């Protein structure tokens, strides 16, 4: 077990759980600017729970999911209300704000580690496989005017992801970008059209 610190918060990190990195912190900052006191927030793929941890005392409610049992245990240890689930399947909603750091890296078979950590980064051959599954049924938990805040990489295809959200009925706005070695990270704010 390791302790990590970001801004004013200390949190625990267990083995084989995604170690929060530039993408996580970019999403924390964007989420802090986005969240409203009345929001019912769902965070999908919470990992250590870091984003939810920052939102817990700033929203009406915060619930997180992860498919990894290790991530769920880690998020709970950090005080986050967590459900083990595949994306949002098993949650009824409705939510006002969905926060999603998907596995967004394009991968080939040899890239996978064969551990739960694969779910943190493995976006399939295009990097967009899980994003596509996420958008497929998003209308069941996110009503019109509901917002999605999501982070991904230039390696995922910025224009392609924007177009995926638009074609699922969202207006799309770039909230922040950050250049890191070999890629640019981007946070999108997507609002479901009425």
């Amino acid at each position, binding site marked *: 077990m390791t302790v990590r610190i970001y801004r004013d918060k200390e949190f625990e990190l267990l083995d084989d759980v995604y170690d929060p990195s530039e993408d996580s912190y970019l999403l924390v900052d964007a989420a802090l600017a986005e969240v409203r006191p009345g929001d019912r927030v769902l965070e999908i793929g919470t990992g250590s729970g870091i984003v939810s941890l920052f939102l817990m005392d700033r929203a009406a409610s915060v619930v997180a999911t992860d498919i990894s*049992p290790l991530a769920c245990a880690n998020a*709970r240890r950090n005080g986050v209300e967590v*459900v*083990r*689930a*595949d994306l949002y399947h098993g949650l009824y909603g409705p939510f006002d704000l969905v926060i999603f750091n998907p596995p967004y890296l394009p991968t080939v078979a040899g890239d996978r580690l064969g551990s739960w950590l694969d779910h943190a980064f493995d976006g399939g051959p295009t990097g967009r496989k899980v994003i596509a599954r996420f958008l497929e049924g998003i209308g*069941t938990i996110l009503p019109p005017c509901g917002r999605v805040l999501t982070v991904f990489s230039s390696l995922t295809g910025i224009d392609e992801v924007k177009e995926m959200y638009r074609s699922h009925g969202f207006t799309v706005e770039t909230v922040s970008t950050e250049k890191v070695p070999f890629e640019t990270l981007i946070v999108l704010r997507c609002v479901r059209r009425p």
Partner: protein
Amino acid sequence: MKKSLMEILCCPVCKGDLKLTIKKEEGDEIVDGSLYCAKCNETYPIEDGIPNLLPPGLR
């Protein structure tokens, strides 16, 4: 999980309501128990305070 979480949980397969059985609770926290979907005849465990709503094939 808190009892109030029940309001937003549903069966991951049919989206139907779940029936809560509590085996162990601490205050308003459910530590151990289960969630049952009558329509699918499927039980989802709650262990160490974490409900596991993965469909049987994904567990």
